């Protein structure tokens, strides 16, 4: 029997509508102004937005606090990312209770980039539990109303638990087996790592068909040629198509500022509209996760273009 849908994200997916999710990255600040500004730019175009949890192991404003304030101030639902890198099982459980109590309905479980990549590299990597065990923890909280040890929780916990998959993984078989493990435990939805190659995305979704888990494909509109080049060189397994990069490079030759920006946006919108249309037409993907950190302006144009 399908589980009850508590969040707008899951309700929309269950209703069979193609969804878009966005991404907000809190920074090293004690102020919410910037994240609220980004959330307002995404609202109306994404059904929910992820709030990152110390990405690349950089110590930033907490994801739970931002997820709460975004929902409160803008009314847009959030997907609160939680890594197992910085907290032991007690702290994670406590944060989940806090999230549920604050009305956050989606959490995305992640290992978290290793502390060796951190801006505080001397930090202790916690990893008391791993992401599969984290999914198991959420399932027990939601389905049985207990913690990992079976201790009773007062009242119902309404949370959906998401996992991450990587269509670019090499060897892919290892990634697929890992996903299978987490699906069996009871993950509710999956968002993927950035993928540019539509054929790779289609191949991955074909493999996912045997699982009954909604999949949102991750995409990454590039604000500049430099960003595209950086990803291509530094994110293992991700290759940004040459033609797309060439078009970005050409667009950047335009001297006029606003014309240049508009041309770069056109290049992105055209590329990803084709990508998304193909995904919608040929696969069972439930939606697209748009990772446009620092480039939220493109989300509106892209979603409108795809929805035409």
């Amino acid at each position: 029997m399908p589980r009850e849908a508590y969040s707008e994200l899951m309700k929309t997916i269950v209703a069979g509508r193609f969804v878009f999710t966005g991404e907000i990255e809190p920074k090293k600040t004690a102020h919410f102004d910037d994240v609220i500004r980004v959330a307002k730019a995404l609202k109306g175009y994404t059904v929910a937005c992820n709030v990152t949890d110390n990405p690349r192991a950089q110590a930033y404003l907490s994801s739970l606090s931002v997820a709460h304030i975004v929902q409160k101030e803008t009314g847009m639902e959030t997907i609160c990312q939680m890594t197992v890198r910085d907290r032991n099982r007690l702290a994670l459980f406590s944060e989940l209770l806090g999230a549920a109590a604050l009305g956050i309905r989606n959490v995305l479980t992640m290992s978290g980039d290793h502390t060796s990549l951190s801006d505080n590299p001397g930090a202790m990597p916690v990893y008391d539990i791993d992401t599969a065990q984290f999914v198991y923890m959420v399932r027990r909280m939601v389905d049985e109303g207990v913690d990992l040890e079976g201790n009773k929780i007062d009242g119902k916990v309404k949370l959906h638990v998401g996992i991450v998959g990587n269509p670019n993984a090499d060897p892919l078989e290892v990634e697929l087996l890992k996903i299978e493990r987490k699906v069996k435990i009871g993950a509710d939805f999956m968002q993927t790592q950035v993928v540019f190659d539509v054929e790779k995305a289609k191949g991955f979704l074909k493999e996912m068909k045997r699982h009954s888990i909604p999949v949102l494909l991750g995409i990454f509109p590039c604000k500049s040629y430099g960003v595209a080049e950086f990803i291509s060189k530094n994110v293992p397994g991700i290759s940004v198509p040459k033609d797309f990069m060439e078009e970005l490079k050409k667009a950047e030759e335009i001297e006029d500022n606003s014309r240049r920006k508009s041309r770069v946006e056109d290049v992105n919108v055209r590329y990803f509209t084709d990508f998304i249309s193909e995904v919608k037409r040929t696969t069972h993907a439930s939606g697209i996760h748009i990772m446009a950190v620092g480039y939220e302006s493109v989300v509106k144009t892209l979603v409108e273009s795809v929805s035409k």
Partner: protein
Amino acid sequence: MIITKSKAPEKILEMTKPYKKIFIVGCGTCSTACQTGGEEQVKEMAERLGVKVIGKVVVESPCDLRLVKRDLGGSKQLLEEADALLVLSCGAGAQALAEQTGKIIIPGLDTIFVGKIERIGRFYERCRACADCVIYETGGICPIVRCSKGLLNGPCGGQAHGKCEAGGHTRDCAWVLIYNALKQQGRLALFTKFRPPMDRSKKAQPQEVVSR
């Protein structure tokens, strides 16, 4: 084997500076194998510290009190005279000597890990002493020590082309190694097995084995 590394000479000189009479103790087992606390290194250290050194002994295993008593038995007088012991062994040996002698202990080595020795200069960590060995299920590869995140249900999203994100994709991803080993052994079903959270209480306090 307990793998050790010599502390920087200036660090040792700084710790030995306040003392006039120093007795050096080496280790005849692990630190001898690592060439950090054997006969040769003890002799070199004595030469470096010069007249301060009033005696030196390589105990077969300084972490074994029975062997400490046996091997230091002949040096009682010198040990009593010494202001401090400079110990070239792992932390277990150095602390066993502290408890046994009541002397000020100067650790000459840093304890790095429990590992295998390929050859001198090539040491690899292989055990974290987690008190719950799972390698039967993981192709003889320990995910606690060889996965940078110690994941029991790996890999994480940080592996690329079989390499680990920690350290910049140079070291092998333990979970890809586990996958390859289980596949080769025809036991791939074990890969997708869900392993519940570890019972960390086994390591939450100083451990003792008292069986008789």
